[in-house]
Structures are given as structure tokens and as C-alpha cells.
């Protein structure tokens, strides 16, 4: 706008004005724009290439840059700010029962092989479950077991200890303590048939008696 202007006033607008024009066109056009196209859209005598060079310089180091796309020009987000165009939504989900049990076995029995985990759980452990725990950085590979097949073992990580607020995996409460804490009474399906009948029996008896009564 304040650029010195040697051209005749009757010719092209000042280069600063041309720069504004190129800026507006590049901004508003849905596709990259060629110099030819700019020439066609700008007032007669304009020098879009020159204006583009100015504009390009002006946007150097800015949040958006003037970039060449093929033989056309466009304004694009600065490469280092691409992360702003992503909106990360973090969803926190509860770990699946299989994963919790697997993790618990690793924590209590480390180093432990996959076969051992399966033996303790009584069901096979899916690859996904192990992968998930490794990805969460709660378990990692330990040493190979010096037994036939040299199976890998799994151990818990420092990240695991940090997450669960433990200094050491040995700090995990034992079965007795779990029971004392009432955690073993809170047992659903496995023994359900039995524990149910224990409690249920009394009720059944009672209702029987009431029927007798009647």
C-alpha cells in the first residue's frame, strides 16, 4: 500500500495493493490458483508473480504459508501446526475382565509364561489381551524361561507400579489379606451355584415352613 510506485497511475494498482488482492484470492478460492488465473482476475497490468513473491515472504514463519502446489499457489497451514487440525478425544474405558485377570496373574506370579497364565486362568489368553497390556506399558517381556521351547515370560513394568501406586510387585496383598479385606467374599459366578444355595437354603426353608404354617 505504501510501496514506492514508479508505474503510471493509470496502469496497475500499487504492488502492495496487488499483494492484498493475491492474498484475498488465494484465501477465498477453493482450489490452488495459477499465476495465469491471477492475471486474469486482477486489474490489467498487474504482476501477480511479483505480488506472490511479496506475499510468500510475508507469510514466512507464520501460522499459514503461501505454497506452490504443482504450478498453482495456495495458502496452507504451516507444517508444524498440523497437530492443531486434529482434535483428539480421549475416551477412558475400563479394562476388560480378561485383561485385568491376566494383568493380575502377571503381577502375582511374575515372571510368568503365557502357558502359565492360561493354566492359572483356566482359559486361553488372547493375543490381543497381552498386546493391549504391553501397549498400556503395564507388562513387558521378561527373560526367556530356561525350559524346553524357551518360552518368553512377562513381568510388570515400572509404569504398572506407578499406576497402581505400588513400590514393588511384592507389595500386592496376598490371598489372606484379600480375604480379610472382604475381597474374596465378593465372588460372583465361579462358586455361585454353591454359595447361592448356602444362603438360598435358609430362605427356602423359611418359605417351606410358612407354607406348613398355613
Amino acid at each position, binding site marked *: 500500500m505504501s510501496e514506492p510506485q514508479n508505474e503510471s497511475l493509470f496502469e496497475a494498482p500499487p504492488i502492495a495493493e496487488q499483494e492484498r488482492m493475491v492474498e484475498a484470492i488465494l484465501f477465498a478460492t477453493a482450489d490452488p490458483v495459477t499465476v495465469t488465473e491471477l492475471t486474469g482476475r486482477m486489474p490489467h497490468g498487474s504482476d501477480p508473480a511479483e505480488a506472490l513473491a511479496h506475499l510468500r515472504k510475508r507469510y514466512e514463519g507464520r501460522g499459514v504459508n503461501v505454497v506452490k502446489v504443482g504450478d498453482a499457489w495456495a495458502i496452507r497451514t504451516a507444517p508444524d501446526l498440523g497437530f492443531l487440525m486434529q482434535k483428539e478425544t480421549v475416551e477412558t474405558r475400563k479394562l476388560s475382565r480378561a485383561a485385568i485377570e491376566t494383568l493380575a496373574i502377571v503381577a502375582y506370579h511374575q515372571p510368568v509364561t503365557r502357558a502359565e497364565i492360561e493354566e492359572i486362568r483356566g482359559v486361553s489368553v488372547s493375543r490381543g489381551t497381552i498386546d493391549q497390556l504391553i501397549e498400556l506399558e503395564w507388562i513387558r517381556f521378561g527373560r526367556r524361561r530356561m525350559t524346553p521351547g524357551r518360552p518368553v515370560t512377562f513381568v510388570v513394568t515400572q509404569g504398572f507400579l506407578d499406576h497402581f501406586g505400588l513400590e514393588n510387585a511384592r507389595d500386592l496383598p496376598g490371598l489372606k489379606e484379600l480375604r480379610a479385606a472382604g*475381597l474374596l467374599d465378593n465372588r460372583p459366578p465361579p462358586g455361585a451355584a454353591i454359595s447361592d444355595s448356602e444362603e438360598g437354603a435358609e430362605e427356602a426353608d423359611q418359605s417351606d415352613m410358612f407354607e406348613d404354617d398355613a
Partner: protein
Amino acid sequence: MDVGAFEGPLDLLLTLSRTQKVDLREISILALAEQYLAFVEKAKELRLELAADYLVMAAWLAFLKSRLLLPPDPTEEGPSGEELAAHLAFQLERLEAMRKSAAQLMARDQLGRDFFARGITEDVQRVRRVTYTATLLDLMQGYARIRTKDEFRPFVMDRKSLMTMEQALERMRHLIGFAGEWTDISSYLPEGWEVDPARRRSSTAATFAASLELAKEGKIEIRQGETFAPIQIRKKVPRDE
């Protein structure tokens, strides 16, 4: 004048008022009412179809005109002619103001016509990251769940205070051969089981159920003297028939 060109009676009134060539605030509502009524008369002569609201307005203006011309009747209630006229003037002024404002609004620079939004847009990519969490309690409960699975298997074996009907049946099949006389079923309870209440309850129920089963099979007979009286059984002797 073309009636169809007006957006309702208020619009017509506003147009008529412009012929008075005065500021709307100084307009003579009486004169305006007369102009309107004349317009409607003419429309009738020309047999133009006038929408009902134009006729309603005509009737109202005729009423207003009479109120404005006649000396106020002290017995009559409601707003005076002047009040009604003032309100009509306000309505006209307000409509005119909105007309002007609408024109000013539309004369503004408009998006997509005079100024423009970004042509190349970048959608914000939604990246959904799922993290998993568990508490120490989850962990311990999970472990307890697995370990008690083991514990329960033996526990099934050492159900010390529970007797099943099958067990009772097994036991009674051995003993029943000796029961020629009526015997209280409580005497069939395993030794020691009659002391502990839980065991007594369980073994009594099992034994009673087993007795019914044996009775069904025709091996024994059951009797009870009265409600709550002891239940007795004895071996059924096959009769010769």
C-alpha cells in the same frame, strides 16, 4: 392503485400516509382514515377483491373516525379516539422504521457477495484415542476371582454342612432294610449332624426328600400324627394280593 402490491392494510396505510407529505409524527390520522376509506370505496366500485383484513381495517378506521369527530361520551368506556389514533401513528412509524432498517441491513456487505470465507478448508480430524484404566481394587478382585475359582473346587468337596438328597438316599437305602417298625426320620440323620443347626437342617431336608423318593418307589411308608409331629417311616412289607 393495485391492491396486490400491498402487504396488508398497514402497508397500504403507510403508502397513503406518504401522500400527506409530512413527517409521520405529524400525520393527520383523521385524514389518513378518510383516504383509506375512500380507497376501499373505490376498490368496491371497481369490484376489486379486497381481502378481509382490508375490510376489517376499514371498519376499524370508520369507528376511529367517529370517535375522533364526535365529542367524547363520558359514559363510554375504553380508550379515547386520540389514544387509538396515537397508537396507529406509532404502528405506522414503527413499520416505516423497520422497512428502513431492513433496507440498511440488505445494503450491508454480505458474506459470499462482498466478502468471502476461506475457500480451502481443512477439516478438523477427530482422532479418538481410547485409554484403558483399572484400579488396584479391580486388580485384586480379578486375582481373587481366579484364585477362589481354585478354592471353590475343593470347597465343593468339603461342603461340611450340606447334605444332598442323593447322599441321604444312598444312606437310607442301606439302613431301611432294618426298619421294620415306625421310626422317626430324625434317627436316620448321620451321627453328629443332629447337633449343628445348619447340618441338622440340611440333613433333615435331605432325609425327608429321600424318604418321599423311597415312598414313591414303594419301599417305605410315611406318616405324621399331626402338624409338627415327628415324621415316621417304616419299611413297606410287600403284601400278597
